[in-house]
């Protein structure tokens, strides 16, 4: 794809790419607390601050809970706010994630996906962000460092869109992406700054009857984060759902606009369909696993197997219609989960994809593979095995074990 601007090719880890994207996005306030494997992001950003390369207030908070509180309050003061975390840090933010989305503060956060304790584990899985899927945050998951960079830039546009005004988290797989050097093509500073633009604020009606920008402003006093009881709370929540619906469109628009600028595109922004047009068997996954899966699909295609892959680039909002239409021709589907939903009969992605397929014209077989927890390596051979299982299901027309654990000692 053609690009409107010159790229610079860098060797960057996913974390560095994220920090660099935040640096270029004219962020006003960063409040963050270090946690493995997110640390490189805050370290890099601290360097930018120390060397005067950014016009940003860096608040080196004493916890992730305060990181989110500070980002939220900076955001409603009119600033563009960014933070990054992982695992336990995201879990500690849990309360504030809901407050941030409820206050409609368009904070952007990188979540370097990592397992949750106990036992303590610093490696990748999606337990942390999956546990926050109902927090009112938009969730994007990056396949590689390049996409992590691109998604952070896009996230500001999505979050701050006046039809959305929701916080966005961009997930990147811990270590697999965060600490691995890749070729990352960065855009020029001015191109990013122009793409992201200045923070826009919606106009709202104050209790004094004035229409003013939505921020804490002494000239136009506004009460934010009030108590709303049985008579109003429900309406606030319904509006957030409407914003999520709007985000389905905005994410696609931003993906298209970014493609014009950079020449890079991530499916339609919501889902990234790979060889699905005529696929009979397909896997559905998130994040870096898609890279390996695509090479396996290529191999299978060379062997004449009609295999495909659907990567959910956006998990919240869930693009039910896109998932359904992308998987229309597929007869057997393996949904891959890098987290558990204990006692929930399969993982979260499995639940949601099956839910999306409930109204599909033809009911495909849908099975679940839970894999890679706590950073457990998943080999290409094991991943290929998933497609072989799907072929067997198609041949026998029956599913022996709908929920399987890949690479587990049992």
């Amino acid at each position, binding site marked *: 794809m053609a690009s409107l601007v010159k790229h610079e090719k860098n060797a960057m880890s996913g974390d560095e790419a994220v920090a660099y994207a935040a640096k270029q996005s004219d962020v006003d306030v960063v409040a963050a607390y270090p946690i493995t494997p997110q640390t490189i992001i805050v370290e890099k950003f601290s360097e930018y601050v120390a060397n005067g390369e950014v016009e940003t*207030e860096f608040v080196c908070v004493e916890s992730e809970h305060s990181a989110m509180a500070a980002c939220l309050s900076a955001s409603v003061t009119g600033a563009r706010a960014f933070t990054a975390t992982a695992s336990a840090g995201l879990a500690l933010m849990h309360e504030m994630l809901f407050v941030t989305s409820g206050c409609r503060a368009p904070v952007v956060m990188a979540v370097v996906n990592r397992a949750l304790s106990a036992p303590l584990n610093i490696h990748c899985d999606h337990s942390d962000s999956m546990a926050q899927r109902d927090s009112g945050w938009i969730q994007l998951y990056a396949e590689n460092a390049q996409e992590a960079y691109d998604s952070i830039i896009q996230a500001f546009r999505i979050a701050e869109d006046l039809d959305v005004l929701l916080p966005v988290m961009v997930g990147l797989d811990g270590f697999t992406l965060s600490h691995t050097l890749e070729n990352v093509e960065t855009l020029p500073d001015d191109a990013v700054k122009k793409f992201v633009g200045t923070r826009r604020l919606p106009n709202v009606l104050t209790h004094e009857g004035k229409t003013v920008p939505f921020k804490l402003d002494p000239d136009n006093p506004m009460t934010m984060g009030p108590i709303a009881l049985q008579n109003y709370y429900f309406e606030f929540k319904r509006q957030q759902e409407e914003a999520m619906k709007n985000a389905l469109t905005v994410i696609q628009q931003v993906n298209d606009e970014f493609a014009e600028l950079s020449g890079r595109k991530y499916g339609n922004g919501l889902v990234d369909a790979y060889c699905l047009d005529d696929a009979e068997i397909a896997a559905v996954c998130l994040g870096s696993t898609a890279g390996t899966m695509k090479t396996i699909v290529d191999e299978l295609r060379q062997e004449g197997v009609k295999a495909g892959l659907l990567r959910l680039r956006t998990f919240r909002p869930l693009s039910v219609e896109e998932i359904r239409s992308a998987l229309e021709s597929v007869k057997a589907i393996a949904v891959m989960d890098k987290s558990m939903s204990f006692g929930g009969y399969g993982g979260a992605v499995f639940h949601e994809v099956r839910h999306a397929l409930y109204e599909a014209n033809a009911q495909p077989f849908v099975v679940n593979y839970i894999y890679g927890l706590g950073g457990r390596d998943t080999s290409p051979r094991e991943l290929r095995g998933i497609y072989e299982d799907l072929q067997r299901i198609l041949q026998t027309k029956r599913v022996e074990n709908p929920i399987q654990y890949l690479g587990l000692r049992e």
Partner: protein
Amino acid sequence: MATEEWKFTTKDIAEKPDLFLSGHRACAGCGPATVLRMIMKATRGPTIVTEATGCMEVVSSIYPYTSWAVPWLHTAFETAAANASGIEAALKILKKKGKVKYEHVDVIALAGDGGTYDIGIQALSGAVERGHDFLFVLYDNEAYMNTGIQRSGGTPHGAATTTSPAGTVIPGKLEYKKPIAEIMVAHEMPYVATASPYYWRDMLTKVRKGLEVEGPAFLHVFAPCPRGWRSDPAKSIEYSKLAVETCVFPLWESINGQCQLSTPSKLIALAPQKKKLVTEYLKGQGRFSHMFKPQGRKLLEEVQRVTDERWQRLLSKCGMKQ
């Protein structure tokens, strides 16, 4: 720090428009509501207030109504100081980028004893350590009153609350009130003070000093709660006076680590015969009523002893001896 003397006269205060407005849902005789209305009289220009979850947050912001004539933000119970950090950081950078027109905006964080002594202390300690320019006002009604009178780190020894009831075996709260203002002094912050609404001019002066100071300031305000203290709503201000006169809640300030008694307490230090017995303050409050029964005598003596010890310690910190 500015050293000008403030002359808050009753006329000045009456003429200044309220920033904490009437119509809120606080109980009759609510100490914190009186405190908030008064401290907002001491603001000096553009001001943003952020408040922890608690009584005053709940009574003042029931959507779609508000009692706040200044921009106001509530996010959670433990976040008053973290919010102030974010607001202050945002104002600083937006000012630098020419996106805020005000020369200066004061940031006030409000929290009750729960949001300060207990769940909020981490964020408070962090924000003070980072040196954000804000005033943290603790309105201390000495228990979790919003949720129905549960004990906090600020509940005094012996007080009965719903989680430290005066039982047949355990006579109310066994632990002592955490010396929160001293903890804040230990942060080596520029300004820490205690205040009581009875001594309103002293309180307003301290609010103004806290705002004028560059960097973090902490104000610990005594705020009686008739519902939680089981006391007469008409006597909240009287208790605010008695707490100082008995040295249960002495008034002092620490400027850059230099501790000095404020006038009402200084007068007691200079004329010790004026110091009243703690029973003068404790009697009439239902939360201490079990201490006035025969089996409560020991507890009463202990409260007097600890109050005296704390007073002596404060005197020596202020370079005074008794």
